[in-house]
């Protein structure tokens, strides 16, 4: 039942440690329209807790999180 998510913007955040993934995503999300989705790929394990915290505080939504080896893929929908 895996539905393909339509991605409007991809952000490569590999190799960036804290606080850059969150700072970059907060900028990147403003470059898409409300309702659109960005795919952010991070290699920082801290992102696993940071991105959901960021999304809850800013009113955005993480549709899906995928872990592929050392990379974590987030599908984030702009809600605010």
């Amino acid at each position, binding site marked *: 039942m895996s539905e393909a998510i339509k991605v409007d913007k991809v952000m490569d955040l590999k190799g960036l440690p804290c606080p850059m993934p969150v*700072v970059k995503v907060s900028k990147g999300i403003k470059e898409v329209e409300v309702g659109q989705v960005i795919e952010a790929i991070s290699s920082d394990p801290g992102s696993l807790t940071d991105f959901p915290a960021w999304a809850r505080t800013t009113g955005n939504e993480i549709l899906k999180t995928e872990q592929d080896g050392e990379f974590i893929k987030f599908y984030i929908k702009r809600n605010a």
Partner: protein
Amino acid sequence: MQNMEEQLTKLKSHIEALEKKAPENKLSMIVFSGDMDKVLASFVIATGAVAMGMDVVMFFTFWGTPVLRDKNKSVGGKDLMGKMFGAMLPKGTCEVKLSKMNMGGMGTVMMKSLMKKKNVASLEQMLELAEELGVRIFICEMSMDLMGFKREEMIKYPDLTYCGVAKFLEEAQNSKVQLFI
């Protein structure tokens, strides 16, 4: 019935007063330390807070103030103590040292190279990022005066404000988060 209406207006004004006092989505932080590790932590928190949608104000006081000096600027007309403080305290972000394991400067050099290797932003980069994100910086006038620093030797930063304790308290009072580092 009249009693109900009276209570309702009372409640309404009460709620309005509460709303006025509600803290803003803001972080007020005192940067007291001039240690590299603590200043780095301050900037990580500050830039992270902007990413979380917060308004951020950093207050640099006491040992924090020399961090904001411009390494390329020098001013004359200082008395002996001013010259001593000026020479012995770090001049800008590149001269700050680790609070622990500095080992005569070796530890700091090693930490800097580790940070580069692991892609951790340097203090110079963090300061630039803070500027780009619109972090506001305030400097304690009294600390500067105490150590003999002059406004002309401080870094160029948009809206760098010189202030006293009341300004910090005003900002802190209507901030959701306040920190002392």
